[in-house]
C-alpha cells in the first residue's frame, strides 16, 4: 500500500514512507531535538530467561541484553543439570559405566552407550570380534533412536513457536519408538543395552514384526510432517533466515550434525568414518543449503526417512541372523548370563542359576569375579566418535589397566553446539532466540553431564 496522493502530508513526508502508509509523526528537526533524551533514557534491559522457562529447551539459562525487542548480547548459563556422571564412572566397573553414560543425553541414550562401548572395545582390541548380530542391532537401535530424537527436536521446536500440532504428533510417533525400545531392551529410556563386547540381550520374539509395522506406519506418517510444515507460511516465516550460521562459523565453533549439514556440507561420520558396519547400509547424507533454522528442520526431517531406510535394511539382516551370538565369545568379557523377564517382572535366568549354583563351582567363581570385579582393560586411551542426532559425540576413554575407567570424558555435541547461541541470536528478535536454540537442539542432560 503506497500512497499515491501527491498532496503534502504535514506529518508523514511521502519520501520517508516508501514502506507504506505510516501513522506517525515525523518532519522538521524534532529527531535531533529528541535525540539527547532518547540516549539518556536507557533502553537497554538485561533479561534472564530460564533456567526454568518452557521455551529454553530444558534447564538452560539465557542472559539476554535487549534494546527494545532486539537482542544485542546473548549468553548462556549452563550447569544446572550437572550430575558428575564422568566422575561417577571412575568409581564403577567398565560395564557399569554404560548405565551412567546412557543417562547423559537422555534423548539419544543408545548413542552415548555406543560411543563408550566402541572406545572400550578399541582399548580391549576386540573391535573385530564383536559379532555381526550385535553390530546390526546397534545400528538398528541407533537409527530408531535418531528418529525418536529428531521427532522430539521437531516437536519441542514446534511447541516453542506455538505449533502445538507438531508437538502432539511428534510425541505420538516418538511413543511408538519408545514402545519398540521397551520391547527390545525392557526400558523406554536409560537402557544400558549396548555394552562393551556387544549388546545385553538378543532380540525378543516378535520384535522384527513390530519393527516392520512401525516402518510401514512411519512411511505414511513422515510425509504428513512434510505436508504440515515444509511449505507452511507461518512455519517458514518463523524459521527462515533465523539462526544463520554458515560453514566457516560452524567449523570455527565446532558445530557438527544437522547445523553443519544445513550449510550444504555433507559431513556425516556414518559415511566418512564408518563404525558398527555403517558402510554396509544404503543411505544418503542429507544436506540443505540455507544454513538457517529452516534448513536444520529439513535436514532432520529428511534424516528420519533415511534412518527408516537403514532400520529396514537392518531388520532384513536380522531376520537372517536368528540365534546368532550378540556378545563377544571371550568369556572374560562377555556377561555370563542371558537374562529373561520372569513372571515377577524381574530379569533372571533360571538355567544360568542352576548352572552356577548346582553344577559348576568354577562357573560360580567366574560369574562372581566378572560381575563384582569386572574385566581389566589394557592401559591407553581411545576416542571413537559417532554421528549422534546432534553431531559428533565421542567418548575419550582412558584406562590405567584396571577394572574401572581411569577417565571417561564425553565430547557432547549439545555442549559444543550451544556455544553458537550468541552468534545465532545476537542482532535478532527475542522471539528468534527461541527458534535459534531449538534449531541447535541442545539436550541439557548432555550439555551438563
Amino acid at each position, binding site marked *: 500500500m503506497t500512497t499515491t496522493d501527491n498532496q503534502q502530508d504535514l506529518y508523514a513526508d511521502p519520501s520517508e514512507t516508501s514502506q507504506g502508509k505510516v501513522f506517525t509523526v515525523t518532519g522538521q528537526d524534532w529527531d535531533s531535538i529528541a535525540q539527547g533524551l532518547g540516549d539518556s533514557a536507557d533502553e537497554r534491559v538485561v533479561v534472564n530467561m530460564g533456567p526454568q522457562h518452557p521455551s529454553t529447551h530444558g534447564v538452560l539459562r539465557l542472559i539476554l541484553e535487549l534494546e527494545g525487542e532486539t537482542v544485542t548480547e546473548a549468553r548462556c548459563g549452563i550447569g544446572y543439570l550437572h550430575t558428575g556422571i564422568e566422575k561417577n564412572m571412575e*568409581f564403577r566397573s567398565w560395564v557399569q559405566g554404560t548405565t551412567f553414560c546412557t543417562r547423559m543425553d537422555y534423548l539419544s541414550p543408545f548413542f552415548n552407550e555406543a560411543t563408550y562401548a566402541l572406545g572400550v572395545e578399541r582399548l580391549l*582390541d576386540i573391535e573385530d570380534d564383536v559379532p555381526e548380530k550385535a553390530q546390526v542391532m546397534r545400528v538398528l537401535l541407533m537409527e530408531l533412536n535418531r528418529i525418536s530424537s529428531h521427532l522430539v527436536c521437531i516437536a519441542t521446536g514446534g511447541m516453542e513457536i506455538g505449533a502445538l500440532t507438531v508437538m502432539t504428533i511428534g510425541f505420538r510417533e516418538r511413543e511408538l519408538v519408545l514402545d519398540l525400545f521397551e520391547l527390545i531392551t525392557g526400558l523406554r529410556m536409560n537402557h544400558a543395552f549396548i555394552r562393551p563386547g556387544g549388546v545385553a540381550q538378543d532380540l525378543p520374539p516378535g520384535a522384527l514384526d513390530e519393527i516392520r509395522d512401525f516402518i510401514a506406519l512411519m512411511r505414511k506418517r513422515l510425509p504428513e510432517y512434510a505436508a504440515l510444515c515444509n511449505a507452511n507460511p507461518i512455519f517458514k516465516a518463523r524459521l527462515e533466515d533465523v539462526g544463520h550460521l554458515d560453514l566457516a562459523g560452524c567449523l570455527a565453533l*565446532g558445530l557438527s550434525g544437522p547445523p553443519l549439514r544445513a550449510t550444504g556440507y555433507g559431513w556425516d561420520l556414518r559415511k566418512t568414518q564408518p563404525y558398527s558396519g555403517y558402510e554396509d547400509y544404503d543411505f544418503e547424507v542429507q544436506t540443505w543449503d540455507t544454513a538457517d533454522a529452516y534448513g536444520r528442520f529439513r535436514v532432520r526431517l529428511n534424516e528420519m526417512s533415511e534412518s527408516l531406510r537403514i532400520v529396514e535394511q537392518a531388520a532384513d539382516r536380522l531376520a537372517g541372523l536368528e540365534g546368532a551370538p550378540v556378545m563377544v565369545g571371550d568369556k572374560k568379557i562377555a556377561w555370563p548370563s542371558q537374562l529373561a523377564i520372569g513372571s515377577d517382572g524381574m530379569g533372571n535366568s533360571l538355567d544360568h542359576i542352576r548352572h552356577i549354583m548346582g553344577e559348576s563351582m568354577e562357573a560360580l567363581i567366574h560369574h562372581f569375579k566378572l560381575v563384582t570385579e569386572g574385566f581389566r582393560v589394557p*592401559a591407553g*586411551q581411545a*576416542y571413537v566418535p559417532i554421528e549422534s542426532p546432534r553431531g559428533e559425540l565421542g567418548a575419550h576413554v582412558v584406562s590405567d589397566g584396571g577394572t574401572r575407567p581411569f*577417565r571417561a570424558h564425553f*565430547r557432547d555435541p549439545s555442549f*559444543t553446539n550451544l556455544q553458537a547461541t550468541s552468534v545465532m541470536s545476537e542482532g535478532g528478535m527475542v522471539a528468534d532466540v527461541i527458534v535459534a536454540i531449538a534449531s541447535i537442539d541442545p539436550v541439557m542432560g548432555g550439555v551438563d553431564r
Partner: protein
Amino acid sequence: MSDDTPDHNLQDPSTDLVAGDQEINRAVGSRHGMFGVKGSGDTSGYGGLVSPTVYPASTQRPYGGWFDEVADALEARLGATDLDAAIERVVVHRGEITFHVRREDLAFVAQMLRDDDDLRFEFCAGVSGVHYPEDAGRELHAVYHLLSMTHNRRIRLEVTCPDADPHIPSLVSIYPTNDWHEREAWDMFGIQFDGHPSMTRILMPDDWPGHPQRKDYPLGGIPVEYKGGTVPPPDQRRSYS
C-alpha cells in the same frame, strides 16, 4: 596382573625405562594387591603384589599409513622454525596417533595443524583433562582431538603441566570452539588456559571450592541402608583396581 607378567613391568614404578636418550616406556602410578583389601584384613597372600601402570610406549618410525605423512609435514614445518623439540614423543596405539606437544609450543603447533594445506585439521573436538596424580611433574594432561575433514584424518594432541604450575596456552584464538571446553577443564581439573577470554567456571557454581574431577577430590556420598544392611558410598566400597 599376576606373576606371569614380563619382568620389565615389575620394576620400581618411579623408574623410567629408557633406551639411550629416547624415552620408551614410562610407568605412571601402580596398583597394589588383588582384591581391594588393605591392612590386616588381607589374608589372600596377594597383598604384596605391585603392578605398575605403564601406558603405551613411544612409537618409532614408520608409524604406518597416513600417520607418517602427518608426522613428516609436521616435522618439516617445525624444522623450518627450529622448534624440532616441540613434539616430545609420538604414540601410535590401537590405530590412533597421539602427539605429545611441549606446552609452550602448543599454540604454534595447533595453528600450523589448522593452517597448513597438508595438515588442515580444521575441526577441534574440544579438550579433555586427565589427572595423573602419580605422574610427577606432569600431573595434569590436556588432550585435544583434532579432525581434518579435508583429509578425513584424526589425531590427538596431548599436553601436560605440573600441578604446581597448572598453565597451558589457550587455543581459543585458533579454535574458538575450545572456549567452553577449556572452561570445563579449568572447572573440573584446575588447568588454567592462558589467553582464554573468560576463564570462569562453567558447570559448577561460581563459588565452588576445588576442582571436582581431580583424583584427589573425593566423590562424596553417604552410606545407604537397605534391608538391614548398609551399603557404603561408591568411593569407599571395595575396589579391585
